């Protein structure tokens, strides 16, 4: 059984985001880029399945400009068996990514696709659902626990929903998107980094996969959230009441 995992290169989550002066987007030049944390979790889950004998191969897929190869290498160093890079310099929206994945599924024929529930750059939370829709596969989103039954060709997914945990059972092939608590991803160790160097990476373009990158979406403006005002120290209860009454006008 083959598992396909989608991984995305995003601005590292520990980096302070700066908006470009012309408000057309955020500054990415000279900024640390890393694998989307949810994608790391997705990959980790796939690797664990392979290590416990439930899967035979893990294929990592990334899309974007050539720098994404770094992210793909990280994925291979974590333990993915092969990589696929879909080279594109234009902006990719969830529907593009979903269509590309759908077409890769025709080539790779995986039984399971695992993705992060969302990417921390645009916070869309759509790709997994869209792939499932396009393929007409069952989906288990926001997974906090995944149990695969190889014999029955079934996967049980615990989902983190607003009022608790929902358990769903999916027939393979299926799509899973991962939440934060699913697992703790491993580090890339030197022996694995070394091994990763000889792992194959296949390259495609969106055209080769018959996906037209055309967007119906236009970004009008990107702005920073309003800054929180600094607090003030008041010296007495009276002053506090006075400020609440006359400045804040809340009492």
């Amino acid at each position, binding site marked *: 059984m083959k598992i396909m995992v989608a991984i995305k290169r995003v601005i*590292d*989550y*520990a*980096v302070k*985001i700066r908006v470009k002066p012309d408000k057309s987007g955020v500054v990415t030049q*000279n*900024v*640390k*880029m*890393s*694998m989307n*944390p*949810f994608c790391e979790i997705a990959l980790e889950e796939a690797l664990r399945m392979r290590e416990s004998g439930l899967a035979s191969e893990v294929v990592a897929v990334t899309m974007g400009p050539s*720098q994404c190869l*770094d992210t793909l290498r*990280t994925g291979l*160093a*974590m333990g993915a068996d092969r990589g696929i890079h879909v080279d594109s310099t234009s902006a990719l929206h969830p529907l593009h990514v979903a269509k590309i994945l759908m077409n890769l599924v025709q080539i790779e024929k995986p039984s399971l696709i695992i993705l992060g*529930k*969302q990417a*921390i750059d645009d*916070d869309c*939370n759509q790709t997994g659902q869209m792939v499932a829709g396009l393929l007409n596969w069952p989906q288990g989103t*926001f997974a906090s626990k995944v149990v695969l039954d190889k014999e029955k060709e079934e996967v049980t997914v615990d989902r*983190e*929903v*607003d009022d608790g945990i929902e358990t769903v059972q999916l027939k393979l092939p299926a799509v899973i998107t991962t*939440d*934060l608590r699913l697992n*703790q991803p491993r*580090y*890339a*160790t*030197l*022996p694995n*980094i*070394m091994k990763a160097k000889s792992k194959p990476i296949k390259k495609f373009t969106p055209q080769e996969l018959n996906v037209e990158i055309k967007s119906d979406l236009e970004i009008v403006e990107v702005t920073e959230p309003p800054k929180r005002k600094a607090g003030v120290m008041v010296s007495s209860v009276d002053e506090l009441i006075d400020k609440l009454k006359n400045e804040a006008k809340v009492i």
Partner: protein
Amino acid sequence: MVNRNCRATLRLLTLINRQGHPHPPLSSSPSGIDACWKQLQRNNVHGEHKIVSFFSPLASSLKTRQWGVKIQSRCYGSASVLVQRNPKFSKLNDEDVRYFEGILGAKNVIQDDEKLITANTDWMRKYKGSSKLLLQPRTTDQVSEILKYCNFRCLAVVPQGGNTGLVGGSVPVFDEVVVSLSAMSKIISFDKVSGILVCEAGCILENIISFLDSEGFIMPLDLGAKGSCQIGGNVSTNAGGLRLLRYGSLHGNVLGIEAVLADGTVLDMLKTLRKDNTGYDLKHLFIGSEGSLGIVTKVSILTPPKLSSVNVAFLACKDYSSCQKLLQEARRKLGEILSAFEFLDSNAMNLVLNHLEGARNPLPTSLHNFYVLIETTGSDESSDKQKLEAFLLGSMENELISDGALAQDINQASSFWLLREGIPEALMRAGAVYKYDLSIPVEKMYNLVEEMRSRLGNDANVVGYGHLGDGNLHLNVSTPQYDDKILSQIEPFVYEWTSKHHGSISAEHGLGLMKANKIFYSKSPETVKVMTSIKKLLDPNHILNPYKVLPCSSIS
């Protein structure tokens, strides 16, 4: 659960995970514990004690109290240093207070008990003075007027920065007047072309770091206490820290200083020149003299540009000699991008893994004897990473490294750093600890740890870690409780050993009160004599930070 803004949520989660460690609450503690301490200590100075609080003193206040009683009621035989109040110093009177109020305004003349307790107690809560007065000048002229008066009245003075020093230098021993620089915290100028920053001595290091960050620069100095320590304190202790390997010591990075001498003379050496060979370079006297020669009021400092590519690797080595060879190779092969080379032994690693929440072994498959953390900082992400990877893989083939992991994102990098930076806190949690901060030639450095281990046998856990790249060993002896017998096995052996191998008994923390009388282990009598004459020349009444840095015998 669908998180709208995952970036923020992730940050929050990391914060929550980390709670309880590793960032030290570098602020004052509730007065309850302080009050207890106040009762316990009355100006007697002991040798090494248990350091009661390092990262989270409030985590177990009960325990703290018990330790307090134990520690403060004892006096260590050979290692004890009992200091007498110098009778030449006057006692503070109301007239003095009024005079200071005249200079500073009543608001900046502090006699409030709670604030005085904080100013009288050091960060480890190990040293405690009984000063009745805290002064907060806002200008150099005010500092000058204060000192002029104190010199005239023969009132002893303790200059105080962020009070994070680890050798008892920043708090009074008896009733010295505390002069705090906290209110002098302005950034005066920053030159974006040269990267030269001029600021007042009371600027908190972290504030300078974030100011520079927004300008695209960094401080050449970084240390765990950055949230509280001040640049004036850093300069006065010649603080080392995590970036020394790359950017060198403050003797190189500080371009100018303004300092006030004991008699109130203002020495304006606040140059912003990289080269200036006109006579004796007196600013160096104030770098590392721990407030004993003058009060630093302004500093100009050369700051390097911030580089975008930082990589961190956590490595395992089978023996100490591999760590050393790895250092030599790293210097050669990583050259200009190498920015930190830290090491810890397996005892330190076990301690962190057992006592620090959130600590995770990146190399869990087997236990190794030594671990090394390497950081590179450069300007080209892909070529830096390639270079580091090639170096690491090569070292693995040569068997200098037995295993290792390379951080793939900032979060992983900080979790590697946590293993190194969290050792002091883990030590605190493990029980009693005897701390030594030593400079020793790298090739001999670990012999001391091994000798100490065989001296102490099963009675103690001897832990070695530190800034290997700088030849700086942090030797720590951890025991369930304090024990005189253990102490007498450690001291003076540790000082004698260091001296025999031409090391320094204080690599970066200074001498302060703790080691003033130990100076001869590292400096010749002739050298100390010259130091004493300089002290007498600049501070003839010895009012500045008395009982510290130089041995009492040489000063009287």
